[in-house]
Every structure is written in C-alpha cells, then in structure tokens.
C-alpha cells in the first residue's frame, strides 16, 4: 500500500499544482493590475446569492422525491432512478435548449398558464438561472438523499412499526435526524457546483444584472483581455471553493454516490392512501420537470439525425474518445488519491480534490495555453489539454464516490489484507478493484458523460478538424442550422447518457 499512497500523494500534488500554476501563469502574463471593478463585486454577490438559492431549492425539492423513491417499489423504478440522473450529466447547451422549449413562452408550461388565464412566467433573469441550476442539480441531491434514507437500518424501522409510529413520528425520530446529518453536505456540494456556473448564466441570465464570477472572467479574457483581473477573479473563485472545501471536511458529507440504489427499505408506516398519493405526485412531478426538457430535445432532433453531415459524426467520435480516456484516467488518479486520502494526514488530498470543483475552466485552459506555448504548438495539444482539463474537473466527483467506499473497505478488510501480506498490485487486483467496482464504474460513467458534453477549452485551442461534438453543435447553431443543431444535440445526449450507462451498468454486471 505504501506505493499506492506515494502515487496518491504525487497525483494530489499534481492536481493541486494544476489548479494553482495556470492561475499563476495568467497572473504573471498580466500587463497591469487595475484591481477589481465594482461590477465584479456585484458578480460575486450574485454568484453567492444564486448558488445559495439554487442549492437550497434543489435540496428542498429533492427531499420528498427521495423519500418517495426510498419507500416505494414499482415497476420501472430502476429506470426512473437512472433517467432522473440524466440532467446532471446533460451538456449545458442542450439542457438550455430543452428548458427554453418547456418553460419558454411558446412552451407547454406557459401555454397552459395562458389557457387558464394566468400570467406567463419568464425563464430569463435570476430566476431562470436558478431554475436551470435546480434542473441540473436536483437529480444529484435526490440521489444523495435517497442514500441517506436507505442507510436508515431496517431494524429501526421495524422497531418503529412495533411501537406503532405514525408517519409523522417516523419522520421526527428517524428521518429528520438522518436529513440533518446528510443535507448540509449535499447543500454544500451543490452550492459549490453552482458558484462556477457560466454557460447557464450566459444563456438565461437575461442581462448584466445576472453576471456570475465565471462570466466576469470570460469577459475579462475574451473581450477586455485584462489578464490581471481574470487571474484575480479566478483566485477569488478558488478561495471561495477552498473555504467551502475545508468546511466540508467538518461536515458529514454524504457517502459515495456510487452506492446501491436498488434496495427498498420495507416500510410499515406509509401505507395510507394519502401518503401514497403524496409519493406518486412527488415522483410524477419530478419526472415531468426533469424529463420533459430532455424529451423535447430528443423529439426535435430525431428527424434530422440520419442526414447529419460527416463532420458531426467525426465530432461525436472525438468526443467519445475524450470521454473514455477521461473516464479511465480520472478513475485511476482518483483511486490513487483515495488510497492516500484515507490514510492518516490525508485530509488535504480530499480538499485538493474537492477544490477543483471551484476551479475556473477558462483560467485553467488559458493558463495551460500559456504554459504550453513556449514548448509546443498549442493546436497540436488541443485534445490532450482538453482531456487534462476534463480529468481535473472530473476528479472531485470521482473522489466523492471513491473515498467513502475506500473508507469502508479499509475498515472492513484492511486487517485481513495486512495479516495475509496482501499489498501493492496483488491488493489492487484481488481486493481493491473488485471491492470498489461499483463506485469506480459510477465515477467513470460520470466523468465520461461530463467530458463528452464539455465545450470547455477546446474552443481556445482547436483547429477546425479537431472539433468535438459540443463545438460542432455550436458551429451549427452559429450557421443558422437549428434543425441540424438539434439533431446533434440528440446525438450528444445519447453519447453522454450512453457512456454513463455503459460504465455504470458494466460495473454492476461484471
């Protein structure tokens, strides 16, 4: 294991450096330091505010859905859980298309509202940003909270039943304490994800009042070319992330989201029709909210898939290669880091791993560009750099899945392994990989999906014949070709969900 620990520490150091060095490169290259503008502080306030509201709403809405999923058994439950996870791995451009189709002014929601004589709602502005963030992150919250529910031991529910607990008693004495332990961690993870929001705020923000820090970084870079300001904003974002990550070490973070979802805890307190009704409504509404936008994009795109030009398919192939490579690399690195993080004094590794949630992809990409420039043609390295950034950005999720599972593994079997002199590669082959197969599969699937949908730094580096599918999708939109763009969006959804499903399923059936 000591070799594993050493590799893990080395990887964690590289990751930490990967977050700081590009930032330094950008700062070093800056021409002047004009400091932050008043509008930047406005952006910081807006970022924190919307992240707070988005995280709170995601968690609040996830609780009834998670409870319903945890205590109901019905046909297709597994499929519902898989599909409910879809928005989280959906490429932002595609999701925005879908959200606009549903909540836009000619979408079903507003048609319905107008039909019954109500004011139509607008999807743009601060509430549009929050809506989109809830759409993305509520599935994650649901998934994590379902696990909390399933962690309530069956014996306790049996005891509760034998004591004649009502639904309310069960909630007060068993479920509420669980929620109090789980929810702060879930909130924090989602809060962090929302602080780096960029594309959502761009498309739905509605104007200069809804500017996030990441958007301010984008402006500083691409329009003002104020590298000093960009670096400062990037550092600000990182500090925000570091604070949250250190806080998160103190909180009971939800254990790995790769753990099993398929167990239904038998319940004796929730058989009444009112409770059943409540659960059905919760699941039904969640499905409508989360699946309708995806379904509309799929429906719109289906007609043009067969006539898509070759460039789209090549783009899809390139995205697939990046996705699979990112998945394999991220899980290997995360495994090494998890080994080191669960050893004494490994806390900083977890912090470094979580921190990259808050890293600005734009600062990261530009910094790497500057670092690569003196030694090689950045265009040649476009795909590797894209891969690298995706690996760094995927690590926090992979670590979240792996570290708790690794802790359990060490708690249960470390003594046995040590007493049998089982270590190094033999340990990895005979114990580590088989025991961590599910969280590894989940982490690989998630990273692959996120990488497949990432527009990211490829736009900074690429030459046209290196375009990934999201970039091609963007190009189509930029050439008046909305129909083909929608077909490409369908392809992108299929790719993202497909790689996720394959990795996750594969790890279960293996």
């Amino acid at each position, binding site marked *: 294991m000591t070799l594993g620990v050493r590799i893990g520490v080395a990887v964690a150091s590289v990751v930490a450096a990967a977050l700081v060095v590009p930032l330094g490169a950008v700062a070093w290259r800056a021409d002047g330091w004009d400091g932050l503008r008043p509008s930047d502080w406005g952006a910081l306030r807006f970022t924190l505010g919307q992240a707070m509201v988005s995280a709170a709403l995601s968690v609040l809405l996830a609780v009834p859905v998670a409870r319903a999923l945890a205590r109901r058994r019905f046909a297709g439950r597994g499929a519902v859980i898989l599909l409910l996870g879809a928005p989280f791995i959906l490429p932002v451009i595609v999701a925005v298309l879908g959200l606009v189709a549903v909540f836009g002014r000619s979408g079903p929601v507003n048609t319905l509202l107008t039909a019954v004589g109500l004011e139509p709602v607008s999807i743009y502005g601060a509430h549009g940003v929050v809506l989109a963030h809830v759409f993305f992150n509520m599935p994650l919250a649901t998934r994590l909270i379902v696990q909390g529910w399933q962690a309530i031991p069956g014996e306790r529910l049996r005891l509760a039943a034998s004591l004649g607990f009502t639904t309310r008693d069960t909630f007060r004495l068993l479920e509420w304490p669980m929620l109090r332990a789980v929810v702060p961690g879930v909130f924090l993870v989602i809060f962090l994800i929302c602080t780096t929001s960029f594309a959502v705020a761009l498309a739905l*923000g509605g104007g200069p009042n809804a500017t996030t820090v990441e958007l301010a970084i984008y402006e500083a870079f691409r329009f003002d070319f104020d590298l000093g300001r960009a670096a400062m904003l990037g550092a600000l974002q990182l500090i925000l992330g570091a604070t949250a990550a250190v806080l998160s070490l103190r909180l009971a973070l939800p254990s790995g989201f790769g753990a099993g979802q398929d167990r239904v805890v038998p319940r004796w307190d929730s058989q009444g029709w009112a409770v059943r009704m409540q659960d059905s409504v919760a699941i039904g509404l969640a499905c409508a909210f989360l699946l309708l936008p995806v379904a509309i994009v799929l429906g719109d795109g289906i007609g043009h898939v067969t006539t898509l030009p070759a460039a789209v398919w090549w783009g899809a192939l390139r995205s697939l290669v990046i996705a699979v490579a990112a998945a394999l690399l991220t899980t290997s690195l995360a495994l090494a880091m998890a080994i080191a993080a669960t050893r004494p004094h490994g806390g900083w590794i977890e912090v470094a791993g979580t921190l990259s949630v808050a890293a600005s992809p734009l600062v990261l990409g530009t910094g790497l560009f500057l670092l690569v420039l003196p030694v090689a043609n950045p265009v040649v390295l476009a795909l590797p750099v894209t891969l690298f950034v995706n690996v760094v950005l995927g690590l926090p999720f992979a670590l979240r899945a792996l570290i708790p599972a690794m802790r359990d593994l060490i708690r249960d079997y470390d003594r046995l392994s040590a007493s049998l002199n089982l270590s190094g590669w033999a340990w990895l082959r005979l114990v580590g990989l088989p025991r961590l197969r599910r969280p590894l599969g989940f982490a690989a699937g998630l990273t692959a999906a996120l990488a497949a949908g990432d527009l990211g730094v490829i736009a900074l580096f690429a*030459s046209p014949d290196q375009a990934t599918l999201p970039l091609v999708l963007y190009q189509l*939109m930029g*050439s008046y070709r909305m129909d083909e763009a929608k077909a490409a969006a369908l392809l992108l959804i299929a790719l993202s969900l497909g790689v996720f499903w394959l990795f996750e399923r594969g790890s279960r059936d293996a």
Partner: protein
Amino acid sequence: MSSPHPVRPMERDMKTTLIPALILTASAASAEPLTIYAPDYFGSEWGPGPAIKTAFEAHCACEIEYVTGDLLPRLRLEGERTRADVMIGLNTDDAERARQTGLFADHGVDTRDLTMPIEWTDTTFVPFNWGQTAFMYDTARVETPPTSFAALLEAPDDLRIVIQDPRTSVSGLALALWMYAVFGEETEDAWAKLAPKITTVTRGWSESYGMFTEGEADMVLSYVTSEAYHIIAEEDLTKKAAIFDEGHYVMVETAAKLAGSDQPDLAQSFLDFVLTEAFQSIIPEGNWSMPAKLPADQLPEGFALLGKPEKAIIYPAPEAEALRETVVAAFEAGLAR
C-alpha cells in the same frame, strides 16, 4: 433544411486527418502550410473557410491551415511567438486593439473601388465583407415593425427582443455603438427604455438567433443580410430585417498579415486574393454577408430582396476603441435601472 453550401471539402479532409488528429497532430502537411487564424464560425464546415481554402489552394500549390478560436485574446496571449501568418475575421470595432499589438504589417492591397457604403483608408486591415446590424423580426408576430430606433423604444413592452452582450460579442458591441451614434448623451436612457422589451441578453449571436427561430422572441439583434439566408436557403419570406430611418451600424470583417510571418510572400498573396472575385463570390452564401468588392449584379438573386438602409453608420477603428468603455457603461447602467 437544404444545404446552401456549395462545397464540402471537409469530407475529404476528415478521412485523411482524423486519425492523426486524434493522436495529437493537427494536420499533416508536406510543406509548411499557411496558418490562418479565423473565428470558429469561419473555419467550420458550414462557414466560408473551406471554400476559400479550396479556391486559394487551386492556384498557389500550397496549403492553408485554419486555426480557430478567439482571435484577439489568442494573439495577445501568444504575442511574438504566434504561428499565425494571416488573421481573418477581425471586426473593425476590435481592429484598433489588434493594431496596438504591433504584430501586423501593412496590407499593401488596393482598396479603392470597394462596394461598401463607407470609405476605406485603413492600411493594416483589408475588408472582405460587411453587414449592417439590424433587428430581424417575424412577420407572423410583428405586423407593423418599427421604422426607426426611436419607434422601437416606444414600442409596447410586450414586444420581446433578444440581443447580445456588448461585453462578450462583436454584434452586441456594434449595437451599443449604434445606439450611441443615434442617441448620443441620451444613450443610457434609451437602454432603460429598451430594457423591459429585452427578454434576454446572450453571450453570442448563435444563442440569440436560435431563440428567435424557436419563437422565443419577436425580434433579434442580427444583420440585414440574415434575411438572405431565410430567402435563399429556406425560401422563407417571413423573416425580415426592420429598417430604421436613423441608419444602421456597419460591421466590417477584415484580414491582415502578421509582420512576423515566416512566409510573408504567401501571406501577401493571400491578402491579394481577398478582394478578387474568386474569394468575394464565396461570401454572400458562404458567410451570409455583403462582399466588400463585388458588383451588385453578381450577387445571388435573393440579395435583391433585402431591405436597403438609407444611411450607413460606422465609427472608424480608433474612435470605436475610444468610445468602447462609454457605450458599455451606458448599457450596464441603462439595464440596471
């Protein structure tokens, strides 16, 4: 959607370059290719880039390699180290900043007899196409389009407009300059009047235009020539540009040669190629824009149907640069009210 694009050289390219592209290399060339930095839309399969590449390579026995992305930030990151020989697609409103990098050489191209509504005296940047900023509308949703900017401001607030952010997009910046040219000191008030009608401000043109065609907006900030796309490629006559009495802001896209190019002769011959008919005739349907030097009778038929603004507004590059902070501030303050 039918394909308006005549040439698809990418399909050939793909076969030969995909595998190396996946492994690391951009594109393999026998001799040193002419490296052209271009915006993403320009170099993509659906932009004018591939056809221009084919046309140029036909008579130069050389190879063009496009590198796409953000032109100016990239160039400034690279500085003297840049591998670019030519940069194409830079807008006049950004030209001054580009000039200040000191990385460009004079173009040496004869820019008299252009078919543009403005004088051209710039010796660094050669114009290759131009367009006038305009609000597109759907005749099914807007029956009586505003005929002036002032009328647009007075339109009822349930008119839904999408625009682009002047801080992130060239068309958005053009709008901000346009409004300043029309309203002067009252620009901030004008923004405040426009604000209730603005559904959303997007980062770039693509998102805005997508929302418009999806029916999310009644009007969208775009170009007079957008109409040509709908007429020619979709045979749709319901998408029109609203023509304003005050005139329309002109956006000119340019090409320029890098002083540090290691193939100055080839770069120069490309610049000379820009204003030739072979290049210019690709522009109308390749970039859905007005060629900088092509007689009106050589334009595709559909272009005759386009609205003709009476007046062309443009700030010369140095002036546009000087005004930039002012007009962006007016946008921010006007919308924040």
